[in-house]
């Protein structure tokens, strides 16, 4: 039976590059997928593109391409990646330039265009999930709109034998499913097999989260050598069954436990996981350990995909400001509370307009609120943290000024003041009808 090997060489924008090289060199891959976009990434990338139209693709793009394109040529695997972010066209040109500078030839690079639907939505009443308002009502503050494309839009590039396929926003599992559909000729309405392939893609899409990362607890769940954690690959057959593995000699571990945790990661109803390709059902998945660090995954199914596609909107929502100050030794908590009281008075009397503000004591209640605070413990050192949102950058800047002023005007023995502001670009969601998508693929031959 025909089988192919698909590796995950990146699970987020800033991911390590050396594990991708391990996979590429040691695992005899047919495909290497780099998943590099979070909810907010395309909004930030759109801002970069506005400033400079040759920018707007993902972080560490040049470094990833410089290290992986030669291996792609040498080993014969294909790269599929969403690192195109807001500007797959520019990424295509940059990748071509890099390939030429490395003296690589006969490499075909493709860019999948069509995720950007900002123009489609202008003036329309598509409803925003999080607040029930329409696109039209918020559009002055909406700086980007990217639809989640799927296998359908990636396929032409695979069919045209592109060695490197760079997309903008697509659904993460689709990056893995598209090669499976292409190699095995699966039909785009074979919902069961698309569901099975989506399961495998979902397990891989966060790199080490299935190979021991985001898992370990030194007492209950031991995992070795995370400094060298291996990224996963799947060996999948034409019936949709996959065997999960990682490069020999790498750290981490693939276990039933790591697979269960990653399977349910970012899932709500496990029987209805909606992607552009299918509504996948994870509830019938079977996991079987074949050998240490080798898990077989089967089961999973699916139903017909939805008529609409999810769109992530980048929305300007004001400014964020934060300040921290630390106290150690006797009465650390009391001094932190004293500093907090000073700040509250200052913010009010100095007319610093904060729409939302939060005070917490790191070491006591910042992560888990009363769940942590009620433990009757007395930390030796704590950090007072204040965080706030305002419409004007001036107010959050002045928040930082007041925290800094606690050097002189606050309790004794303050340590390490930090202050930080940033504009808020929040991710909101809406839907667009499939028929609105006009996707094309453009090519460069090196």
């Amino acid at each position, binding site marked *: 039976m025909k089988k192919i090997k698909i590796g995950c060489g990146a699970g987020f924008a800033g991911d390590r590059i050396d594990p991708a090289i391990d996979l590429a060199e040691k695992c005899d891959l047919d495909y290497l997928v780099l998943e590099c976009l979070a909810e907010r990434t395309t909004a930030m990338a759109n801002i970069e593109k506005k400033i400079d139209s040759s920018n707007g693709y993902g972080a560490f793009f040049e470094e990833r391409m410089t290290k992986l394109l030669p291996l792609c040529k040498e080993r014969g695997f294909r790269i599929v990646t969403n690192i195109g972010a807001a500007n797959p066209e520019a990424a295509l040109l940059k990748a071509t330039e890099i390939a030429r500078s490395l003296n690589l030839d006969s490499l075909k690079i493709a860019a999948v265009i069509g995720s950007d639907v900002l123009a489609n939505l202008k003036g329309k009443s598509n409803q925003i999930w999080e607040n029930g308002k329409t696109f039209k009502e918020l559009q002055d503050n909406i700086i980007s709109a990217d639809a989640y494309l799927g296998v359908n839009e990636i396929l032409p590039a695979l069919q045209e034998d592109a060695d490197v396929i760079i997309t903008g926003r697509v659904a993460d599992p689709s990056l893995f499913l598209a090669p499976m559909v292409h190699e095995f000729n699966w039909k785009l309405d074979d919902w069961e097999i698309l569901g099975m392939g989506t399961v495998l893609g979902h397990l891989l899409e966060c790199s080490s989260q299935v190979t021991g990362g985001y898992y370990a607890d030194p007492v209950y769940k031991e995992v070795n050598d995370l400094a060298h954690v291996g990224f996963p690959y799947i060996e999948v057959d034409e019936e949709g069954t996959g065997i999960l593995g990682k490069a020999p000699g790498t750290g981490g571990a693939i276990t039933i436990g790591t697979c269960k945790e990653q399977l349910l990661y970012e899932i709500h109803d496990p029987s209805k996981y909606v992607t552009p390709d299918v509504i996948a059902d994870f509830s019938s998945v079977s996991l079987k350990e074949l050998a240490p660090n080798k898990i077989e995954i089967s089961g999973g199914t699916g139903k017909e995909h939805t008529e609409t596609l999810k769109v992530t909107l980048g929305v300007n929502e004001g400014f964020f400001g934060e300040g921290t100050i630390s106290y150690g030794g006797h009465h650390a908590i009391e001094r932190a509370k004293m500093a907090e009281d000073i700040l509250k008075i200052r913010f009010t009397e100095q007319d610093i307009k904060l729409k939302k503000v939060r005070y917490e004591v790191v070491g006591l209640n910042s*992560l888990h609120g009363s769940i942590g605070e009620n433990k009757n413990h007395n930390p030796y050192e704590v950090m007072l943290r204040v965080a706030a949102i305002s419409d004007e950058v001036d107010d959050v800047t002045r928040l930082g000024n007041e925290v800094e002023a606690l050097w002189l005007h606050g309790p004794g023995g303050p340590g390490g003041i930090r202050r930080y502001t940033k504009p808020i670009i929040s991710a909101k969601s809406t839907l667009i009808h499939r028929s609105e998508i006009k996707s094309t693929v453009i090519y460069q031959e090196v």
Partner: protein
Amino acid sequence: MTKVKLYEIAHARAGDKGEVTNISLIPYNEELYEEIEKQVTAEAVKEHFADIVSGDVLRYEIPNLIAFNFVLKGTRPGGVAASLDIDPHGKSLSWALLEMEISID
């Protein structure tokens, strides 16, 4: 009957999507699935997370995987980018769930 913390008998992982957090809960021992099902209800989880979760809590049972999936709505109004939390993604909340106590024989 003894009281145990969930972290002694299960593991968990938190994920975020928009303003919603999901936390899987996976018993180490499949024999404890029933007891966890009885005691770690959606209501009990909502109460445990009283100052963190403003919306509904749903629970999905996946007996085939011997696992549960909790969906906590309204953990970060405005989403990750507009969150004031020191942990804007809420990734540490899995360990918060594991602080819950249940009684077992």
